[in-house]
């Protein structure tokens, strides 16, 4: 039965999920969309963020979102190191296409297996006051464990948008994504700007990781489920458009929730893949592309 | 008047909202030496990208030897006889100079038998005075030899029309003087040549006819001595 309640609940749940998807995808939109760095390891950095939130939550009882926020500078530094290595080994010599991709694949693999070795295959979860409760508006239930990540995700999107459009470094990043040659002629150092931008992109993974483990339990290989999603969102959102990322995240969230509601949850994963292929085949510039 | 080898009719190319080419038309005759000039960003490279097939123009028509090639992919245009060199040399870096020439000889040149590919490549290298560098990797070539390789590889496609995109940019005047006779010699063998060049001295000396692009439109066309006197051209280059 296609009841109205089910429909409304699916839409609301999809929108909540979509805000969270945007948070996970922002880093890809910056790295891939703006900097042209195909960081396929991004979802695994997100999972790493989840495990840090888990470790601090279970040992010290710290709130996962607070941990995520505290992790931002650490992840920024991690991003700086990764970019420096990537730049020196591949980008400088123009070998980023084959070896750079394999490099990120290797990173993805090492982090995932390392988490597996330390924490095992069991699902891990965090405890916080807002996990478990639900709001009810009429017949529509809103789980707080979905609402909080959605709001934080939207907040992150707005913050990143403001950073990129209003600050000096943000404008420099946008300029690099347009034409790094011209920037070099003006005396700015594109490598330095790209380092900061990539650090920023990894920094988003700390918070996104905290959101991931608030939404539900996490195991080491869960990042694989997000690879298709984040790239589908980045491409659909128009490669580097921050507002587009949020819009694409919401679309994917709603479509996935509908698929899960009406066809079964295991098919939801195929949705992002289908969207990705269709967008690439029909309109590679994305829905919100320039 | 000789028949047109290349006909460009009302070609328009947009990038997003920006019109890089706006209704450009050109006729290049069989055997001609044709110059294409214009200030930076005037659309010269976009135009030859559309002619060679690296880009597709949204509207307008491009015909070569009487057939419409507007929708053909680049490699088929090369097989029909349009070859180009790149402004920034794009050699096949893992192959030797000789092997670089074998690719177009094998894939584009119609009348070269497989057994003759290496001999033919050596013959082209000799003509370009590159024969003693045949077994080097392109990474070890000097700037001027890299330009020579770029032209040699285009020649190996056995073209009827050779488009030379700023083959002399960054070269000394002695080096320019060394390259020009090679292009003249190719033209005497019957190859039509379009030369895109910033070095006025070279393009004026070489071309029989010159077209001038500015902001995506053709503002003048004629023999070099007329182009030099043209007021619009002067304005485009020097500003108001």
């Amino acid at each position, binding site marked *: 039965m296609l009841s109205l309640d089910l429909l409304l609940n699916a839409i609301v749940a999809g929108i909540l999920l979509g805000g969270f998807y945007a948070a996970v995808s922002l880093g890809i939109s910056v790295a891939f969309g703006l900097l042209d760095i195909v960081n396929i390891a991004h979802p695994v950095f997100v999972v790493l963020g989840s495990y840090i939130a888990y470790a601090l939550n279970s040992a010290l009882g710290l709130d996962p979102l607070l941990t995520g926020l505290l992790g931002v500078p650490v992840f920024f530094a991690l991003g700086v190191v990764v970019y420096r290595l990537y730049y020196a080994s591949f980008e400088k010599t123009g070998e980023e296409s084959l070896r750079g991709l*394999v490099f990120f694949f290797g990173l993805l693999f090492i982090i995932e297996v390392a988490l597996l070795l330390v924490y095992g295959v069991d699902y891990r979860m965090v405890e916080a006051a807002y996990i478990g409760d639900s709001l009810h508006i009429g017949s529509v239930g809103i789980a707080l464990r979905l609402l909080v990540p959605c709001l934080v995700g939207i907040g992150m999107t707005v913050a990143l948008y403001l950073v990129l459009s209003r600050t000096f470094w943000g404008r420099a990043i946008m300029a690099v994504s347009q034409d790094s040659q011209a920037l070099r002629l003006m005396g700015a150092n594109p490598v330095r700007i790209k380092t900061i931008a990539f650090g920023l992109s990894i920094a988003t993974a700390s918070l996104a990781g905290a959101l991931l483990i608030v939404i539900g339990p996490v195991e080491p290989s869960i990042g694989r489920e997000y690879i298709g999603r984040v790239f*589908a969102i980045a491409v659909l959102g128009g490669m580097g458009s921050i507002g587009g990322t949020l819009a694409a995240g919401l679309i994917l969230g709603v479509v996935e929730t509908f698929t899960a509601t009406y066809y079964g949850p*295991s098919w939801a994963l195929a949705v992002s893949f289908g969207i990705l292929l269709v967008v690439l085949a029909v309109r590679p510039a994305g829905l919100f592309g320039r | 008047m000789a028949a047109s080898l290349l006909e460009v009719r009302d070609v328009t190319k947009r990038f997003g909202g920006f019109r890089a080419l706006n209704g450009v038309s050109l006729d290049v005759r069989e055997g001609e030496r044709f110059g294409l000039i214009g200030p930076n960003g005037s659309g010269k490279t976009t135009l030859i990208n559309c002619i060679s097939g690296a880009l597709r123009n949204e509207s307008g028509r491009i015909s070569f030897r009487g057939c419409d090639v507007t929708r053909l992919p680049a490699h088929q245009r090369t097989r029909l006889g349009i070859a180009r060199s*790149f402004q920034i040399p794009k050699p096949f870096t893992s192959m030797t100079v000789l092997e670089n020439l074998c*690719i177009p000889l094998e*894939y*584009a040149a119609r009348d070269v038998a497989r057994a003759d590919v290496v001999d033919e490549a050596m013959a082209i290298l000799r003509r370009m005075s590159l024969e003693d560098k045949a077994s080097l990797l392109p990474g070890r070539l000097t700037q001027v030899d890299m330009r020579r390789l770029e032209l040699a590889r285009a020649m190996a496609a056995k073209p009827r029309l050779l488009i030379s995109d700023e083959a002399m940019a960054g070269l000394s005047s002695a080096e320019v003087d060394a390259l020009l006779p090679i292009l003249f010699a190719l033209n005497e063998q019957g190859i039509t040549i379009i030369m895109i060049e910033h070095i006025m001295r070279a393009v004026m000396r070489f071309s029989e006819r010159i077209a001038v692009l500015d902001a995506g439109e053709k503002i003048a066309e004629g023999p070099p001595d007329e182009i030099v006197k043209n007021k619009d051209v002067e304005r485009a280059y020097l500003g108001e």
Partner: protein
Amino acid sequence: MKKGLPLLIAVGVLLAALVATRLVGNRYLYFAGYVIFQYVVLATAWNILGGYTGYVNFGTAGFFALGAYTATVLILAFKAPLPVQIVAGGLVSAVLGLGIGYLTLRLRGVFFSIATLALALVLQTFVMNWEYVGGAKGVSIIRPAAFPPFASYVEFLFFVMAALAVVSAMAAWWIENSWVGRGLAAIRDNEEAAECMGVPTLRLKLLATVVSGCFMGVAGAPFPYYVTLVEPVSAFSLDYAVNSLAMPMIGGTTTWIGPIVGAILLSTAQQVATVTISSELNLLIVGIVLVAFVLLAPQGIVGLVQRLAGRRRA
């Protein structure tokens, strides 16, 4: 290299494999040998697209499992003989390569890679929901009886995989030394220049994807009879994706011998290591070695050897 030599090596390897089945009694060695030859096929297949053309395929597990499940369906439905399974597995995976390639290869190379990243997971989801092949629980396959001259069916499978390894290596050798391989190398070096020099880049890329996908499917087709319990988690194991890419990168990507060297070294090491260390630690080491090679020795072992040999000559 002389024309006859590869053929001679091929016949030699096959004879050696045949003789081995007469002399070696230890059953474990056949299982181990099968895995090593299987990785020779996978690494060679990956390299035809990845190494020669420069397009990275992360979805080896998907192509491999598609071959395995094609064979499973043929066994369940028709009790089809092994050669039919191998041909069918190869064909189905080739069609998958054609489809993915056609949708993504006209764009920049990274989009193809991204699509293949998501591919295995999606195929796995389909299989999990497909009751005919046992869904998530998997399905048991009964191995056929042994027939002469082989003492057991596993010995026969070992010999078949050795033959497939030889065939794939010869295919790679032929591609590398033909006009196709030179066109692919031009694409890898500079795709725009290749297209402008008359190389039909899209058609050659599709060809490489199809051949590469086909051999991955071929490698997966004997899988049901080898494991006798076909289930999604092991058929789609990440091991295949990682190893098929790590082996050529470690061995060297520009020649046919590189993936073979990498496959033999890495899979032998893994076969030995699984006895002593956990499989997770094993995979971690593969990952670290992969990253180390990509960063420090981009030409792989074959490249290192060539450089040493060149220095001695110079």
